[in-house]
């Protein structure tokens, strides 16, 4: 039986016809009771389960997933990781995630194919360059790598980018975070799932939470399509469907669900070796290891639970791409899809206790959940295990909407929300 992945294990298995590999996680029967139940088998839910065991020593943890793990937004995002945020609260959160990503392949014994190829946010006017200089200063004060690039430096990074005088949105420069980049999103899910399963976490796929067990005004577990499961604490990490579960628990949240679209072209030889976003054209793009151009843009601003997306937004994104890279006109579109994102009024996530005691929330990541998975998991595990906030998650509590202390990253995250 081969348990640990390594070059030696691959060689050994190659000699015996690859008969010793075992499934990366089990499909156990649900137990009637766990210490902690996490609803949602995406990146955040699986990472939470992993850190509940690894950081807090819990032994009885389950992840409940309606479909299959990583089948929602964790498999629909555009794989970008970065921490180029403006406010200190956000910088601490997303930098924690990026630092964990940097060691994640080794920590999980699973190659997440992290590629720190650099994140470039273009500026299209002198005024944008001034704002960009402020952003770079803020990031550096927050201890995050950032530099301001001139137009010549941008052109050197991306020879195919139209930086000429004929550009509809002329390029003046850019904000560059060299440690930003991409990671294989499926591998992040599968790596966390495998590590959590090895540590004894029960991953219950094809199990839908239909209701909450509420006794004496507190949450005591969940009712599922496979029977009741009791738990001391329940956490929900279900992204775009958080409001649906909240309604079953009897409260409303500051969330609206929107579709976020993405698309890929056919695969071509290497032509773009960084992630680039243009706030003016509303488009961002990177080239995957396979060679296809992965592109996305702003939200479809139509409240939606339909994982498709509408055509006008896709048209805007593609028009923006062709404006930036005229040579990409030759490419054919291979696939288009959408994920349902839960967007808060300030574009920052919610981590904290819900209005129902013993029920905890990890939601509101909106368009940026993937990059935050290791931090979301670490902080949510801390909250579920101790009942108290980690100092980094405290500003993101639900109470900020009553206190008025919002963390408005709509501008800071570099894409129009």
């Amino acid at each position: 039986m081969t348990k640990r992945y390594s070059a030696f294990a691959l060689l050994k298995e190659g000699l015996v016809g690859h008969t010793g590999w075992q499934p990366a996680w089990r499909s156990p029967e649900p137990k009637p009771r766990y210490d902690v139940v996490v609803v949602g088998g995406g990146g955040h839910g699986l990472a939470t389960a992993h850190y509940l065991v690894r950081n807090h020593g819990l032994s009885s943890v389950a992840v409940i997933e309606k479909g299959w793990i990583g089948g929602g937004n964790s498999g629909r995002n555009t794989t970008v990781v970065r921490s180029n945020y403006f406010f200190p609260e956000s910088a601490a959160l997303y930098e924690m995630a990026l630092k964990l990503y940097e060691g994640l392949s080794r920590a999980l014994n699973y190659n997440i194919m992290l590629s720190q190829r650099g994140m470039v946010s273009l500026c299209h006017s002198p005024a944008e360059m001034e704002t960009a200089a402020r952003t770079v200063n803020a990031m550096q004060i927050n201890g995050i790598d950032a530099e301001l690039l001139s137009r010549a430096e941008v052109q050197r990074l991306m020879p195919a980018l139209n930086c000429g005088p004929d550009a509809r949105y002329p390029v003046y420069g850019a904000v560059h975070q060299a440690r930003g980049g991409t990671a294989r999103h499926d591998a992040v899910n599968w790596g966390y799932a495998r590590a959590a399963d090895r540590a004894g976490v029960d991953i219950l796929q094809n199990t839908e939470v239909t209701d909450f067990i509420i006794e004496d005004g507190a949450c005591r577990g969940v009712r599922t399509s496979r029977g009741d499961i009791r738990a001391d604490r329940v956490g929900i990490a279900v992204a775009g469907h958080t409001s649906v579960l909240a309604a079953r628990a009897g409260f409303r949240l500051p969330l609206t669900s929107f579709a976020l679209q993405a698309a890929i072209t056919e695969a071509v030889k290497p032509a773009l070796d960084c992630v680039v976003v243009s706030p003016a054209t509303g488009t961002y793009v990177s080239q995957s290891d396979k060679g296809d151009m992965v592109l996305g843009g702003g939200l479809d601003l139509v409240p939606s639970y339909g994982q498709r997306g509408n055509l006008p937004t896709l048209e805007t994104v593609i028009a923006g791409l062709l404006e930036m890279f005229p040579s990409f006109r030759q490419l054919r579109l291979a696939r288009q899809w959408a994920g349902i994102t839960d967007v808060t009024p300030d574009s920052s996530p919610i981590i904290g206790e819900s209005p129902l005691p013993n029920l905890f929330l990890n939601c509101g990541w909106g368009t940026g959940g993937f990059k935050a998975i290791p931090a979301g998991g670490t902080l949510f595990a801390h909250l579920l295990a101790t009942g108290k906030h980690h100092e980094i998650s405290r500003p993101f509590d639900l109470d900020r909407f009553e206190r008025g202390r919002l963390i408005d990253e709509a501008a800071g995250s570099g894409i129009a929300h």
Partner: protein
Amino acid sequence: MQLFSCPFCGPRGESEFRFAGEFGNARPEGATVTDAQWSSYLHRRSNPKGRSAELWLHLTCGEVFRLDRDTLTHVVSGSYALGDCAEEVQP
């Protein structure tokens, strides 16, 4: 391109419209409004999956109206001028 129907202009392409909030989210009035009530009005949403009554702005004529649609299938079931939103069409 999906067609939405403005009660004043008739069916138009979706890019002429902008979502303006949930229908029936009334502003709390009076001196005794608590932080929780005000926060709920400002920020908390029902965000339903399925049938939804919404406020939309028709950018070209500037009118705000009620649009009933399904957030899963995107099928539109009705469009009303706010002045005509009597008891029977309240959500």
